[in-house]
């Protein structure tokens, strides 16, 4: 009860602070982005440590996926900020003389960012970059499942930023619910589609716009290749994207692979080889793999595998160690499509491979399922690319690589349908946390008398010409030389 009161007081203070206009200036925004940069630099060691403790992430993976990619994003925002903040002129027809029109981006106010546990630093700070660049006050709620990262963010982050405008609220789902009861000007939520529905329903109460970053079963379509080098690279990229990005616990990780029946043996061999190359003969001893986040998810993944119909389909791996929350990189061949592993998002190091008769059938396979956050396609055929681009729908579509769309600042990152709504990254983050205000300025000098009643036929004729931008017609009617159009 007491905390509720405190929270509400805090939020009221933040709203007051926002109203003071302090956060609107470019210099304030810059100082916050620089603060973030400094946090990433000064606290790099502590971040690596926290990620190692929470998820067993290797520092290089932590740098690649979180600290490094954030550094890149903050730098990008700093470079582009002035341009993003500038208002854009809108074109006007000639008839609107002495009038100007522009689109002015302005901050929304007090926003809430709810982040998740698989990239606890990256997915907390990436939205924060956009929210601060757009001049908002922000409350960040990190995931309670990564307590070390959450604690680090709560204690260290505000000291690098304007503590009056940025607050980190730690806690579990009760805290989350309490936060959602408040009135926000925008909510960005990263997580599961089940909770997303609750977030959206809560937001409806206050008419708060929401960005939902969810996941889904992101497929790989694996076409055949003529060059063996291409095959090697494809296999390497797929195995890496499945097993290395936080051990498959990523919203854009590969969920399953579709290949043509006749190539299956070749691909299987390649993938097995690459698992060995990336993680060694004994992957359990590998330094380079994150572990499963907690017992709950470990059990969930084990249940997926323990379904007898699924178990028999394991063709590689399958080793598990509950004490160390470790699951070996595992490949399954054609598990039943009705089994849980093919119905739910896997979010772990299990990789089902589904064979299709003809690789073109994969389009139908994907279209008949909920829209994923990403579709990955390995192919060298342009016609197939065109078909996939036109006939499938997903948050993003990547040809011949995996996951790296996350790093492209110029592309929007976000889902569609079951994989979410709204988008961020780069300028899209700025836009997501800005209101684009339409501003028109007129002079008091010019006015068309025919705008106003009492109405008559000539006024109608004049308006007709005006709307058709038919200036000659207008002139003729005014001069009385033209009667009706």
């Amino acid at each position, binding site marked *: 009860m007491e905390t509720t009161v405190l929270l509400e007081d805090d939020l009221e203070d933040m709203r007051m602070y926002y109203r003071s206009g302090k956060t609107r200036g470019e210099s304030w925004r810059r100082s916050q982005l620089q603060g973030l940069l400094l946090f990433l630099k000064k606290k790099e060691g502590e971040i690596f440590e926290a990620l190692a403790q929470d998820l067993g992430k290797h520092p290089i993976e932590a740098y690649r996926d979180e600290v490094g990619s954030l550094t890149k994003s903050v730098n990008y925002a700093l470079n582009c900020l002035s341009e993003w903040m500038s208002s854009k002129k809108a074109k006007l027809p000639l008839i609107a003389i002495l009038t100007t029109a522009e689109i002015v981006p302005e901050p929304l106010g007090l926003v809430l960012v709810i982040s998740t546990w698989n990239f606890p630093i990256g997915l907390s700070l990436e939205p924060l970059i956009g929210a601060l660049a757009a001049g908002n006050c922000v409350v960040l709620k990190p995931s309670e499942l990564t307590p070390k990262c959450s604690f680090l963010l709560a204690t260290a982050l505000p000291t690098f930023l304007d503590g009056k405008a940025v607050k980190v609220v730690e806690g579990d789902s009760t805290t989350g619910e309490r936060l959602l009861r408040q009135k926000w000007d925008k909510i960005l939520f990263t997580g599961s*589609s089940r909770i997303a529905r609750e977030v959206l329903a809560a937001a409806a109460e206050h008419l708060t716009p929401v960005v939902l970053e969810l996941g889904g079963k992101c497929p790989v379509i694996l076409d055949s290749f003529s060059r063996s080098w291409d095959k090697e690279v494809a296999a390497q990229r797929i195995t890496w994207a499945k097993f290395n990005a936080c051990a498959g616990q990523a919203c854009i990780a590969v969920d399953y692979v579709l290949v043509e029946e006749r190539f299956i043996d070749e691909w299987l061999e390649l993938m097995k080889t690459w698992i060995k190359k990336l993680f060694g003969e004994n992957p359990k001893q590998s330094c380079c793999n994150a572990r499963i986040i907690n017992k709950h998810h470990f059990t969930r993944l084990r249940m997926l595998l323990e379904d007898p119909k699924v178990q028999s389909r394991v063709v590689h791996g399958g080793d598990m160690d509950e004490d160390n929350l470790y699951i070996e990189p595992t490949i399954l061949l054609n598990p039943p499509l009705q089994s849980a592993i093919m119905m739910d998002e896997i979010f772990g190091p299990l990789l089902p491979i589904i064979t299709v008769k003809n690789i073109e059938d994969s389009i139908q396979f994907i279209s008949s399922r909920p829209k994923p956050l990403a579709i990955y396609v390995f192919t060298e055929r342009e016609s197939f690319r065109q078909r996939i681009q036109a006939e499938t729908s997903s948050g993003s579509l990547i040809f011949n690589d995996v996951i790296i769309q996350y790093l492209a600042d110029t592309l929007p990152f976000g889902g569609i349908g079951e994989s979410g709504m709204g988008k961020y990254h780069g300028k899209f983050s700025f836009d997501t946390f800005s209101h684009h205000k339409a501003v028109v300025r007129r002079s008091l000098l010019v006015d068309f008398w025919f705008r106003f009643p009492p109405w008559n036929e000539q006024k109608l004729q004049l308006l007709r010409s005006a709307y058709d931008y038919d200036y000659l017609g207008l002139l003729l009617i005014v001069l009385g030389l033209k009667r009706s159009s």
Partner: protein
Amino acid sequence: MPSSSVEEPRRDDGSGEGTRVKIYKSPKGLQEEKAKTTSNLPYLLLLLLLLLHPSTLPLLHFKLAAIGLSVNLARERPSFQALPRKAAVPLRVSSSMATEVMEEKGQAFDSRKAEALVRDLRSRFEDGRTRSYEWRVFQLKAIARMVKEREKDILGALMTDLSKPELEAFVTEISLTKSACKKAISELKAWMKPEKVKTSIITFPSSAEIVSEPFGVVLIISTWNFPFLLSLDPLIGAISAGNAVVLKPSESAPATSSLLTKLLEEYVDGSAVRVVEGAVPETTALLEQRWDKILYTGSGRVARIVMAAAAKHLTPVILELGGKCPAIVDSNVDLEVAAKRLMGGKWTCNNGQACIAVDHIITPKSFAPKLIEALRAGVEEFFGKNPTESQDMSRVVNRYHFARLAKLMDEDGVSEKIVFGGERDEGKLRIAPTVLLDVPGDSQIMQEEIFGPLLPIVTVDKVEDGIALVNSRPKPLAAYLFTKNDLLKQQFVQRVSAGGMLINDTVLHLTVPGLPFGGVGESGMGSYHGKFSFDAFSHKKAVLSRGFVGEINTRYPPYTPKKQRLLKALIGGNIIGIILALIGWNTKE
């Protein structure tokens, strides 16, 4: 000079009497019209001289007389009676249509029917039928044709539903729909083109683009105040983006609602664009379904219901709501012009029943009496001595809203603040333009969106205080300022948050196709109009393509310190660092 003496403009047809369906132009007319839109700068400059103010008219007259033209421009006003207003009223449902409506009404549109409808449209969408450029443009052209050919029917329906003066209806509903359609037709190709974007060294070598794809099956719930425009404008967006659409017009504007059903069935591809008429039960049945996007225009209360329903299916929504749109009026303005424009944003804008209509005026205490006088004079000029009799003003939509507005006026502490107006005629659902001065801040009229012809004026000591007053309320859909003070303009733009804002005029910003139209906070979310409509109904798919060359092993395990250095150099965009790390020179941390 054949027309040196101006004759009474006459309608070129005797229509409107009995028949109402008149098809007079083929699609060819459309192209002709397009050709006409090329600009004529020289005429414009001359026009400018002419069109400035009514006050310049005598001058103009003089000038024309000087060059030997005797044109009596003053004639245009009083002698006019020709608009067949009454003839347009008895728009009756044609017999075939009546049976259609009966059929619909006979079997209630329930969840089962709604489900079947959506299933049907979804399979149509999945056919890919709606995706092609050709399909989209064909539908848009059909809509343009429909607006042109059926203008009379549409004006008639609006007259029945709202007594909307024909000219006002033409300006706000017909013209805006037409121009939205035209713009979409001429720019659709460009809109549909994937947008190439730059890629960075991190993903090198690669190419990236943003592809616009249709969402799928979308729902548009429209409203009664501009029942035609607010149905078709979003529809144009949804179709240009290649979606299958269900339109649910408002039951409070029944004539327009049934006309829309009839016309759309006749003109556009009914297998992918459907109209569902009805009230709460029908809307509820629709909202239970899974949509890929919903655009709702209406009130904040219903918007909450729509969004909560959408949450079940994770459907993104665009909410076009309203709010109390303020107009701050400085004392340094040209009084007559400002007053007219304020009236243009209130009483000639569907009689205040518009989401961007002026809700209330904020002005310095000392200036208020002058402004009131100007408004009083303006009302008389516009609507005559008996405004409730005027045909140049829409009526209140229905009894419910009439009672609501009456209650706002009759509240204790409010009714005695009426400075002019206040007359009402319940039978005709008419309320005269009414100005109130300094009503209590906690009265209902200052709490809810007025949405009618009542105009409270709130006085402040200094005009700058108006900004704080506006900011103390929920963010409106539009905010207006009248001033010659540049500093005040700047402050207003910087400090006031609103869906859109317009300085020194009202409502017109809506007509600028290059601007997004939409609210913020309580006034809504999402925006549309022009390209923004296309974007609102398109999913922006990120498409990234890579080749197989240029593979850098940095991102793959097993991890080594060298990889970390290389990564850092890459992410920092430090070319020398990258080279050093690659050739293994930079060995220390």
